[in-house]
């Protein structure tokens, strides 16, 4: 599928089952991950394209690649907030569920902010509340590699959380930042799920596929899927070709993972985390440049530069769900209602620090 705007969506719409179209256009559609580092950020084509393709809510990863320090991350948040504020007629930075729903009702794209690494904390648990005040509503702690908080999913080792990592997870639960296990080591994620359960907060994987479907180190096992679901959390299905695997990132390949997650955890524990980024060439160059965090996929190298799922495929995915006989409620849950429910539970304010 090429680049475009409403025209692309119209083509997909014509090919889809009318029941799927009707359901899709009425549903809340929520994409829990879009890399939005400086190089990928694009406010006037990418975001409107998602909006035109029916996506109502997008969570932007606003940190310039893993390892970004406190200063760099803060400067970038200031920049992104200003860029969004300048487009207040079309998009809104949201930090609560009423704000998300109000943005949708007003025809504005609802934007959330997330971090994909614990590095912006600069080793300070108090920074969790500062980033929360600045709009961060979801975060993972270690991106593929090991850091001072946890192990990443591509590490040589699979150790659990550090002492500081445990404190950060507890603080996220207290403050109301959704705890995300994507990109993280298996043991760290299971420990995070246990800490979240203890705190009465949901634990999620915002953008991860099923290891049982394809054993890539970035995909998660059924045990991890169940651990998230057990906290009232969920898993967002990812549209990056390498993790599917499908060089074209086709909708059928994505559906296989979605269907597996739903078969393991039920339709109340699956959603979307497409991971779309507009410059694939840059992404793959970056992957090669950071080989220690991106070892070869199963079967070894050389790595194939795959595509990323495009926003118009969300309607195709809806079509697959409808044609597979999923009940309307299940389809609506997966498209957005699950994220709404889970985020509301994760964001509800709590009291003072312990």
């Amino acid at each position, binding site marked *: 599928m090429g680049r475009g705007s409403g025209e692309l969506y119209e083509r997909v719409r014509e090919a889809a089952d009318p029941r799927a179209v009707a359901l899709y256009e009425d549903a809340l559609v929520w994409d829990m991950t879009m890399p939005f580092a400086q190089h990928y950020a694009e406010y006037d084509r990418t975001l409107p394209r998602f909006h035109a393709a029916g996506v109502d809510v997008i969570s932007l990863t606003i940190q310039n690649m893993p390892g970004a*320090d*406190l*200063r760099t991350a*803060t*400067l970038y*948040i*200031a*920049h992104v*907030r*200003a860029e969004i*504020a300048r487009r207040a007629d079309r998009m809104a930075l949201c930090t609560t569920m009423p704000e998300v729903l109000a943005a949708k009702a007003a025809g504005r794209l609802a934007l959330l902010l997330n971090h994909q690494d614990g590095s912006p904390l*600069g080793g*300070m648990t*108090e*920074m969790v*509340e*500062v980033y929360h*005040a*600045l709009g961060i509503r979801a975060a993972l702690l270690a991106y593929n590699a090991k850091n001072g908080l946890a192990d990443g999913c591509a590490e040589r080792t699979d150790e659990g959380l550090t002492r500081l990592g445990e404190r950060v997870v507890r603080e996220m639960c207290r403050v109301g930042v959704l705890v995300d296990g994507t990109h993280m080591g298996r043991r760290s994620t299971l420990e995070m799920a246990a800490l979240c359960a203890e705190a009465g907060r949901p634990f999620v994987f915002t953008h991860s596929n099923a290891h049982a479907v394809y054993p890539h180190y970035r995909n998660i096992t059924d045990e991890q899927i169940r651990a998230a679901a057990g906290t009232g959390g969920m898993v967002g299905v990812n549209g990056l070709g390498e993790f599917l695997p499908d060089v074209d990132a086709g909708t059928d390949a994505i559906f296989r993972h979605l269907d597996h997650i739903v078969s393991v955890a039920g339709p109340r524990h699956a959603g979307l985390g497409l991971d779309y980024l507009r410059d694939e060439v840059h992404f793959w160059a970056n992957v090669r440049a950071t080989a220690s965090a991106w070892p070869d996929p199963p079967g070894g190298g050389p790595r194939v530069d795959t595509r990323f799922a495009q926003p118009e495929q969300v309607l195709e995915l809806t079509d697959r769900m409808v044609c597979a006989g999923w009940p309307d409620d299940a389809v609506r849950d997966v498209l957005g209602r699950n994220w709404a429910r889970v985020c509301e539970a994760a964001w509800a304010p709590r*009291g*003072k*620090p312990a």
Partner: protein
Amino acid sequence: MSEITVSDAARALTRDALVWDNTMPWGPEYADTDGILPRFHANGVDLISLTVMGPEAGLDGTVRQIARVRAAITARADRMVLCGSADAIEAARAAGRLGLVFNLQETNMLEGRLDMVQLYYDLGVRHMLLAYNARNAVGDGCAERTDGGLSRWGIQVIEEMARVGMWVDGTHTGYRTTMEAMEALGGRPFIFSHCNAHAVYPHYRNIRDDQIKACAASGGVIGLNGLGEFLDDDRATSGSIFHHLDHMVQLVGPRHVGLGLDYVQDAPRFWRWVADNAHMWPAAPSDRAGSAFAQPEQVAELTELMLRAGYGEAVVRDILGGNWLRLARQVWK
């Protein structure tokens, strides 16, 4: 202190009025949440503006200190609360909680990015001074060798502060830079959060009558400072502070004067820092190194001195805090 007998009327008025101290150094070296804040609160102070960073750190250190101070306040939510608006300040007072806001004593922590003004505002910063004694990218400090005006960047910073709703503060800033800042604001309010009168004592940290007049003409407010060195009084007595206060009131009227006491608990640490930063702290007209800081108990003494001088009750209330509150309502967004 304590040479002035405070009448019951002055004590009652201090308790009953909204008392606002617009400057308290609160960097990592000075912040002592349980040692200092309850004492101010017990002496009738309802709102304190904490300087969460001065010239000693950039963005990283500033955001880290903001994180620590926010956490310290949240942990004491039954006693104190970070306020973002005049309404929040009045609500805190009504609930018997100490209200707090943040300020910055420098612009270096913007690190050249205008967007950082809004970010600091969103984290609780309600005023920022342009240059601390020495020159920076915005302009000259008040102790600098030169007295140039605002830079192009400085004009942008001021415009962004006005857009965001953050008070533009001329304390520690060079004379010409403050005058040009007020010109750039074109009638929008400008403050001096913690400055005394140069006409009373010609220290480079004190401000001249035309600065005071221009500030008042903008609708702004000047906070009286309680540091002995700027009062030319080692003991920082209330009488010395009142001289500066009364000079300003006579010059521009009582609607443009408030408090910005600049209290530091660990005075020896402050004086060591001054000695270690001689480029920012050249010699003063008289050597008052090691002098005292006004204590919170002196707020009631100041009330007493104002009443004795014939200031009306409404005027005293304005000076104790009403003027800052009015300006918050006018400027903060």
